[in-house]
């Protein structure tokens, strides 16, 4: 049996919320599980229970062959003995220590030489060379994050826990560091649980996603599963995207990317993040324009021919589900549906501007 983290617990606060978590994940390779949900959904509490910083009130947490907590058997292993690497939201670096002292803080095993070698390797791996003697307060957000990661990794943890690792940063930095963090997590190859409330971050960083809301888990699965087949209306609204389709970038040219999606090729403004080919194509339903006849000339780059599969009223707008070689959802007004006399099997042309298509690496 592959080593697994098996989590099944409740955490009740007196006169407060009840948090329930029930999931498992492999811990024998660098699998990244994302805990995704709005603030107040119990994500951080779940992570803190895993680290041993909170005491669970029912159930158990088992990591491989070790029982970390079991309420019925009265077992509660303290955080010191769980060997987890916790990266806090604000990084919680020790302000009275230098970068190197922060990283070396939890290291106790091995000889002095071995430890120094390991620190040197971490400094190198996380591009912190040259910053050894600096204080955390003098570092940029990205550098602080890397120090926090190095400090957590220095103990050789069985499991990395990252609480909103990107939320302390401003937006441009966040986008840049998102790519960097993903590359690092791949490179490190440790099982990790990461919290985010940003769906694109979840999609970008997670091998699997756990969606939490109001203290409970709504859905678990691969990012694609969760985002394309929300098992719960709340998940769909949390995800907030009508179309998320896997594709492959086949060509890049003059700032645009040509993406193979099913049998269609669509044109999108290229992502600046990094050079990937496997991607998700994310299109919001309100950005899809419908016509009955082909448009003679238009600035929009994508004109996809297909037919209507279903029309679902959805609040003020109607969801028009089409087959254009792949499943595409458009959000249009009921008046437009009437004027175009759309019914099932009506042939339509869906028009989407290249700028309205968001490419997310997968």
């Amino acid at each position, binding site marked *: 049996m592959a080593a697994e983290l098996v989590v099944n617990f409740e955490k009740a606060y007196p006169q407060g919320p009840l948090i329930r978590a029930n999931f498992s994940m492999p811990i024998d390779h660098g699998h990244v599980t994302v805990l995704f949900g709005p603030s107040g959904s119990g994500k951080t509490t779940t992570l803190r229970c895993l680290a*041993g910083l909170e005491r669970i009130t029912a159930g158990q947490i088992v990591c491989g062959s070790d029982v970390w907590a079991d309420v019925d058997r009265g077992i509660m292993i303290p955080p010191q003995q769980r060997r987890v690497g916790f990266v*806090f939201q604000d990084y919680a670096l020790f302000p009275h220590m230098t970068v190197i002292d922060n990283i070396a803080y939890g290291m106790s095993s091995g000889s002095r030489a071995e430890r120094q070698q390991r620190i040197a390797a971490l400094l190198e791996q996380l591009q912190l060379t040259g910053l050894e003697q600096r204080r955390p307060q003098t570092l940029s957000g990205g550098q602080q994050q890397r120090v926090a990661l190095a400090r*957590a990794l220095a103990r050789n943890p069985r499991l990395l826990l990252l609480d909103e690792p990107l939320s302390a940063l401003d937006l441009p930095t966040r986008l840049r560091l998102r790519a960097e963090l993903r590359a690092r997590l791949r490179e490190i190859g440790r099982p990790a649980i990461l919290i985010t409330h940003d769906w694109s971050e979840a999609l970008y960083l997670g091998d699997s996603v756990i969606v939490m809301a109001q203290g409970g888990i709504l859905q678990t699965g691969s990012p694609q599963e969760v985002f394309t087949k929300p098992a719960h209306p709340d998940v769909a609204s949390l995800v907030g995207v009508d179309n998320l389709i896997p594709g492959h970038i086949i060509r890049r040219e003059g700032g645009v990317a040509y993406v193979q999606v099913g049998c269609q090729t669509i044109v999108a403004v290229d992502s600046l993040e990094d050079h990937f080919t496997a991607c998700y194509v994310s299109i919001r339903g309100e950005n899809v324009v419908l016509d009955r006849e082909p448009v003679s000339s238009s600035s929009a780059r994508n004109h996809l021919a297909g037919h209507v599969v279903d029309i679902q009223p959805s609040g003020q707008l109607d969801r028009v589900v089409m087959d254009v070689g792949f499943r595409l959802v458009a959000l249009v007004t009921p008046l437009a549906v009437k004027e175009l006399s759309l019914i099932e099997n009506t042939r339509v042309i869906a028009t989407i501007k290249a700028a309205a298509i968001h490419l997310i690496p997968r």
Partner: protein
Amino acid sequence: MNWTSVQTTLQLAGVTSMILLLIGVPIAYWLTFSQRRWKFLVESAVALPLVLPPTVLGYYVLVWLGPHSWVGQAIEQTIGHRLPFTFEGLVVASCLYSLPFAVQPLAAGFAAVHPRLIEASWTLGISKFMTFFRVILPQSGPNVLTAVVLSFAHTVGEFGVVLMVGGNIEGVTRTISIEIYDEVQTLNFDAAGHTAIILLLFSFAVLSLVYAVNRNSRPVWPEILGEKKEGRHGG
């Protein structure tokens, strides 16, 4: 100006503030981090010398250390002599009298350390005990200094407790404040004035030092008064 009484005073204040640092740290740690419901009772007991007349405190210390109490008898059997009207007796009384001046700045300092730093240390495998020495104490530097300086200064300035427990024995228990009282009793106002101005300047210098050290962190008075305001460092 009698240098013997200055020497006695400095010795007493030095020994007292060092002992208070040693016992104040665990008390402050317990007061900061304990979850016990009856913690407020201990807090009140520690703060008692702030409001109690020194004569009341001195009276109880005298009675407890005296030959008629079991504490006094036990001490006499252990060390071979009685504590009242000795330097050691004075140290015991001073420690009780200045206890809040050591404990409260320390407790405020420990409470201002961001809990996440403490938790980070735990997740890095460091015990609660070692976390105290590696994270909490270094983060509370200005407060440790405040605790030492305030308990030193407060001991220098004590009068009622010294008179009750130590009496007025030159070279043993006669401190500066008692000397001033003596000089005034014998209408020797010039000598009293000399000593008084030195004590005044000393107290002012000490408080200036405390405020200077703390000017970038947080106010001193709320700590002395026992209010634990959230500090600005550590976050």
